[in-house]
């Protein structure tokens, strides 16, 4: 029997893996991918809540529309973020976050 708690636990583990990736990795592209993992973990818990909280015998579609918006905004965010990374690489020839310390206090 699969319950809501199973889905929430899997979603939390996915978020944790993404968080570990952001902290552990030094390549800015991998950090960006880990951010996508964290976004997807939030989406999974939203869809799980939508399925388990039925309204008049149907899943709660408000949550699915919110997931649709999140996916749209995430796609736009990826495009802008990758453009920034390419501009950065053109200036500095690196994607390693520790080489980018000119704003460090």
């Amino acid at each position: 029997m699969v319950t809501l708690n199973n889905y929430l636990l899997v979603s939390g583990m996915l978020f944790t893996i993404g968080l570990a990736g952001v902290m552990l990795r030094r390549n800015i592209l991998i950090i960006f991918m880990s951010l996508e993992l964290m976004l997807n973990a939030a989406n999974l818990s939203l869809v799980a809540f939508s399925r388990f909280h039925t309204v008049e015998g149907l899943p709660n579609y408000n949550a699915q529309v919110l997931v649709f918006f999140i996916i749209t905004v995430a796609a736009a965010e990826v495009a802008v973020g990758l453009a920034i990374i390419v501009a950065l690489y053109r200036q500095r020839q690196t994607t390693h976050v520790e080489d980018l310390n000119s704003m460090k206090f």
Partner: protein
Amino acid sequence: MPPFLFWIFSGLMLLFATMVVLLRQPVSSALSLVVSFLALAALYVSLDAFFIGVIQIMVYAGAVMVLFLFIIMLLDLKAEARRKFQLPATFSAIGVVVIFGFMINKVVSGFEMGKSSFPAILHGPKNDVWHVGDTLFSYFNLPFQVIGVLILVATVGVVVLSKRELK
């Protein structure tokens, strides 16, 4: 969907998500992320969210990951594959992960409403996409239009950012 498929797909998703973090080559990380997203789409289908599952495959596993792979190959990142993990960062990451995982486990195990199985849903004449579209265009019409403006702004921003010289 039978329960063992849930365990198979969530296991696959978590395994490949871990490989995204652990593999050294950026290209292998990106391809693992594709597999992880495909397994996540299967989990959406197990939750009767067919539209979200299809969108997940088309937008995330398709468009976004192609963009990632394109940028990785454009930048040619082979030289950075051999850097080591730093010790303090590794320890703090493991510490945060353990604390966070413990916290999630604690919260979820105390959540009594989440211990029931799937509630029954009606399979009427209207399908999943019809309901999502109905909700989108009747209750979320303004946010939908704002999203359109946001995508336009993002497109213009990306074109400006990728010009040869930034002023």
